[in-house]
């Protein structure tokens, strides 16, 4: 939930972050061409590791069983495919379906990795500041909810602690029924407390002029020159990738026969654009590290 400044890309304007992730996740969701998939996996994986360090490795390794499972399961549902490996329950288990399964599992994993990065980079305040002007009431609502959640979590804890210190409330040794009934009591008391407080919050909003004019939204993030450049670059590269994809150069089909669009000649341009696009966050990080190194050696 903290405003993230872990790396160079996180420090960029939320709009740059948001457009990048929409592009990266959108492409990952649609393109199944194995070479593009590999590029996506490398792009997402490297940025994920950069953000999360050792924890990132754990997550990536943890994905492997899931990947294998999804791959192996697919042929059970999808029986099309020319090369039958064996039969399960009388249904053919084909090599093409297995490949297809692997591709889909890879798509899923790459998306998860990108979302992992998204969660670190696009913190709640960045998200709400993006939509502050577009949907002011909703983004204020979201901001208020995000403010209240930790508050209520704390109050719930406080209620439970207070009840325990007068011998009420459920402990570890209570039966599930007791826990349930006490939980409901606390939930209901929490609601009371929260609604009571909401009257004050409402007063505080009106006292500070909520509703007297058309709201503006304070932009704590400003688009710098660098941000505009990056945004233009991201948009350009995405447009190239989408253009080539529409032209069929990312086409891949698995069943009944394997077919991958060849990457040769002009089509290589689409892949190159895709790779450049995916490497933007990692490249920014490397660039900053080098700059920092140089400026430090000058001191």
């Amino acid at each position, binding site marked *: 939930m903290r405003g993230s400044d872990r790396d160079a890309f996180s420090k960029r304007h939320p709009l740059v972050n948001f457009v990048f992730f929409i592009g990266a996740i959108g492409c990952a969701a649609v393109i199944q061409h194995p070479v593009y998939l590999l590029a996506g996996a490398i792009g997402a994986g490297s940025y994920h590791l950069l953000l999360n360090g050792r924890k990132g490795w754990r997550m990536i390794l943890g994905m492997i069983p899931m990947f294998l499972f999804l791959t192996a399961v697919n042929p059970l549902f999808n029986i099309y495919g020319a090369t039958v490996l064996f039969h399960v329950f009388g249904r053919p288990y084909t090599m093409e379906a297995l490949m297809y399964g692997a591709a889909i599992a890879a798509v899923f994993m790459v998306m998860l990795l990108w979302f992992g990065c998204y969660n670190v980079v696009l913190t709640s305040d960045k998200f709400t500041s993006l939509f502050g002007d577009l949907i002011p009431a909703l983004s*204020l609502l979201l901001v208020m909810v995000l403010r209240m959640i930790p508050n209520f979590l704390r109050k719930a804890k406080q209620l439970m*602690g207070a*009840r*325990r210190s007068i011998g009420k409330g459920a402990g570890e040794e209570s039966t599930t029924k007791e826990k349930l009934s006490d939980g409901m009591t606390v939930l209901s008391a929490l609601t009371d407390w929260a609604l009571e407080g909401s009257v004050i919050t409402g007063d505080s909003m009106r006292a500070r002029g909520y509703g007297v004019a058309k709201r503006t939204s304070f932009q704590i993030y400003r688009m710098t020159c660098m941000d505009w450049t990056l945004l233009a670059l991201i948009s350009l590269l995405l447009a190239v990738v989408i253009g080539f994809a529409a032209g069929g150069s990312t086409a891949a089909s698995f069943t009944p026969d394997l077919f991958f669009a060849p990457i040769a000649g002009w089509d290589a341009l689409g892949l190159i654009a895709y790779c450049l696009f995916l490497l933007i966050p990692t490249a920014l990080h490397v660039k900053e590290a080098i700059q920092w190194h140089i400026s430090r050696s000058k001191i």
Partner: protein
Amino acid sequence: MAHFEIKDLTFSYPAAKGKRSLEDVCLSIKKGEYIVLCGKSGSGKTTLLRHLKSVLAPHGKRGGEILFNGVPLEKVSQRDQSAKIGYVMQDPDDQIVTDKVWHELAFGLESLGCDQKTMRARVAEMACYFGIGDWFHRDVANLSGGQKQLLNLASIMAMQPEVLILDEPTSQLDPIAASDFLNTVRKINLELGTTVIITEHRLEDIFPYADRAIVMDGGKVIADDTPRRIGKLLYEQGSDMFSAMPTPVRVFYGAGGEGECPLTVREGRNWLSRVFPEAPGVSSFPAEDLAEEVADPALLLKELWFRYEKDSPDILRGVSAEVATGSLYAIVGGNGAGKSTTLKAICGICKPYRGKVKVFGKPVEKYKSGELFHGCLAMLPQDPKSLFVKKTVREDLEEMTRDKALIEQIAATCQITELLDSHPYDLSGGEQQRAALAKVLLTKPRLLLLDEPTKGIDSFFKETFAAILGQLKEQGITIVMVSHDVEFCARYADRVSMFFDGQILTTDTPRRFFGSNSFYTTAANRMSRHVFQNAVTAGDVVELYKRNREG
């Protein structure tokens, strides 16, 4: 022209059946004045303040007129009122709307539809003025109570109000945060000329700077004068508001002092020096002996060590204490020192990783589940609201026992018999405290733990509360109390302990404890320590003064 002109304001709530909450209030408030409004809870202070801002004015029957800068308030546009009349409420938490400090600072400006440039400038200005720079990017959830209230003030000041209205802004804060807050308010008044209208229990921190003090009782203004003269008025009227006056004022009139009334400790010292140019004949109360060994302690703590997480720092670092049966034992000390954690460790909510807790001679972990909290030990939490789970006080009490007679009896002890059918949230702070105490007492504890029991309640409720504690002590109940309220501990405790850095450092009788401290002590002691050796309450000073003058 007066800033606010209140003419014959009369108001009654719809449910009050004609009983007036405000009666013929006439006031004129000049630009730049610093006005403190005092009165018991329920005297109509908040009702009056809320009338000064249309969106907050309560619904009900109203007569009279309020002029703001000469214009009837209802004719002043909402927009102008929002910007020009700032209003800070009591609860630091619930006033905050957004999740980030910077966003909260900008909230009012956003509402008014300011452009980016103005907002940037004003937000930056406020962050600097209030010293918020360091926590500008933080989540509101991670702020302390004092920081939250300062943020509320700053986010109102960002709109550049002409008047600042504060309704008991420090009642939920600890003393240090409270005086920081009040200093900031004073700075705003002095440096910006903002008119300040404040209600507050902590008159000692405000009186020296206020231009006028207005006292309300039963919806009427009963006194309106400079702080220096208001004490005399109240003393002569025999008003019970007198007991809320700052210590020097109480001592001065209590002792029958002559001349100009002192308002601050410094003035009080000077006055005493003038009265006693030479050391007085009787300069102290007889020394008390502190019993070395407590026979049969109700509570024994031995070398408690505790931390919340495995790799977080220790909160308790070898806490040891003995509490005699039937006594009122107070633990004082700074914020975050671990006082509340100690209480939690006694209850078994926190489990110390080293050390022993013995309740009535038996280790706490040897008590069977349920046994400890029935007829043995109970705790009143800091926020009494955390004990209320039902629609009426009565239902809440019935959650504890089916014994109707016992409920009636305890309700009588706690003086809440008339409140039994009210919703717990409709009670005032002091009443909530007593209702919560009643709920706790229904477990028939022999050892009662109190966490900051005087927080947010005014001096009258404190006295009522102290009287109830006295009754409980007579019934043989041992009370352990954690508090910031030095004055309360000095007056009512049998033993006082200083908690610092995760340990209990010293324990003594209040007289010896506060008599030997020079900073961490009561106002009465600070004011008289150069003349009397161990006077710790206003009553003590008055008594020694009289003995010397008369004897």
